[in-house]
């Protein structure tokens, strides 16, 4: 009996490892090749080297694209938080018909195919007179990043004890004081976690950006362009860095979400 159980445990473990390998082997290969001393991606490698990271750092276009991406990610994450957090609070405080529906609709940009969102925004921004470029991309990203911030913060608010808001007012706090001293600290982790997620989402967003960027490039678009003539080791290098940063961000985001 014991042995049988042991066997099935091993089988399950093996299966799990296989799935993980299938999911992550490509990424591992990219990371390994990033340290390859050779110019072509092939095994066995001819030694360990950091030269592709240097090549990457010297690629002016790539670094410029990285700068663009960072600016876009930081600014649109900020906008998403500045609009999304009070938005979630307003939704929490006031009851109005169709509130739950709105909560779903806000999520739409995350669910809809990026192409659709991209076309929609391009048309809309054109109508508004916003030309393609950095501003358009930031506006576009902010819109769909609100979709990650607002529902997460709203969900956290709903798990909070509603009575503490009345308690704060009863103790003399104004609406603004209540928001700053009671609401914000209690949803702090939800805000940080959704901001981190927003940041990574913005950093590797292609479809919406592609419609709105006009002439300038962002990191994922630049990389995509570079791979058209085959994958070069410097792409492996930049990909490894993106992977590491995203991993850390998502791990922190998960940890914060679990906290309560």
């Amino acid at each position, binding site marked *: 009996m014991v042995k049988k159980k042991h066997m099935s445990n091993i089988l399950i473990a093996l299966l799990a490892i296989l799935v993980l390998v299938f999911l992550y082997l490509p990424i591992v290969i990219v990371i390994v090749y990033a340290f390859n001393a050779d110019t072509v991606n092939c095994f066995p490698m001819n030694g360990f080297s950091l030269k592709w990271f240097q090549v990457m750092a010297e690629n002016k276009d790539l670094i410029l694209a990285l700068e663009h991406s960072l600016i876009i990610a930081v600014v649109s994450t900020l906008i998403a938080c500045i609009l999304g957090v009070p938005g979630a609070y307003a939704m929490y405080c006031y009851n109005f018909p169709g509130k739950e529906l709105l909560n779903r609709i806000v999520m739409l940009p995350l669910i809809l195919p990026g192409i659709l969102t991209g076309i929609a925004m391009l048309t809309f921004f054109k109508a508004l007179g916003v030309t393609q470029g950095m501003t358009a991309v930031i506006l576009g990203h902010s819109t769909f990043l609100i979709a990650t911030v607002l529902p997460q913060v709203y969900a956290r608010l709903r798990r909070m004890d509603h009575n503490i808001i009345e*308690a704060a007012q009863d103790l003399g706090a104004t609406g603004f004081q209540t928001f700053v001293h009671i609401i914000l600290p209690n949803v702090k982790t939800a805000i940080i976690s959704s901001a981190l997620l927003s940041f990574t989402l913005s950093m590797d967003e292609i479809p919406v950006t592609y419609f709105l960027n006009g002439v300038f490039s962002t990191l994922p678009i630049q990389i995509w362009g570079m791979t058209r003539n085959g994958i070069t080791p410097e792409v492996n290098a930049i990909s490894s860095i993106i992977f590491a940063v995203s991993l850390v961000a998502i791990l922190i985001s998960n940890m914060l979400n679990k906290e309560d």
Partner: protein
Amino acid sequence: MEKTLIQLEHIHKSYGKQTIIEDLSLEVRDGEFLTLLGPSGCGKTTLLRMINGFETPDKGEVLLDGVNQVAIQPNKREVNTVFQSYALFPHLTVRENIEFSLKMKKVDKNEIKERVDEVLELTNLEALASRKPGKLSGGQQQRVAIARSLVNKPKVLLLDEPLGALDLKLRKQMQIELKKMQRRLGITYVYVTHDQEEALTISDRIVVLNKGNIEQIGEPFEIYHSPKTEFVASFLGESNFFEGKYENGVFHYGDAKIPVEANGTKDANLLSVRPEYININLGKTEENALEAMVTEVTYLGQTNRIELKLKDGKKVYALSEIEELEKGKKVFLTFHSKECTLLKKQEQ
């Protein structure tokens, strides 16, 4: 003699089509411990929420110290509330929870420290000052909730079933503590409970509420011994009710004539007698005694609770120490004529 601190005048309140409170008026005296007592859903919380400002009456006035409160926001009213769920701020320590209101009002730092220390001592919380609420027991959280309000020196402290979540022993202990604290500070307490025993122990005056109406206001002794309505008599303690007619010092119940020293309304059609005021006699000592049969004897410690059945089948409860009482025994009942209360039957 005493000053009136809170006046509720002709309050009306409904939620949608459901009328919760209809034309209720009430005065709370300065420094008293007033309890709102009533069954679940009778509007106790609603009433408190009109005093602390989280609900607005549809009609009527709420006055505090003579000042109309209706247009004043909750955070500007000089009353504080101890919520049923305590509603402590989970991200703040006990000390920070207590400091909160003073900080919001931008009170001077030294004064904050002084006042918080004072309240911590009063509520015996000094040792717990740096803990978060999540790491406190129910009784301790309760004390923090009270301390957090008291530090404000409110004119009135509203308490909404503050002991509801505690076990019986702690409840009894906290009742005494609450009462002592209130006496010492002289702050007016408006206390909500649906526990009649608690109300009788703790209050200076009790307001008995039923379906948003005041059934009776009075001191605990008065409420218990001279209930004005059938509802009050049955809600506070236990009572036996006899339907009949009152005439010249005699209450006619069927063929029986029960002598009553008039107490209550003259056109009474209901007689209320508490179990402790029914005498059980083994022999027919009085002409008017009611014949009954013992159907159940429950040992209560100091006394026995006797369930009896009258000849017409009506059940009656009495208390007695007589040892010979056992199931099936025939006995005769007489009532303390001074302790019988005459009432009018209420529509239910």
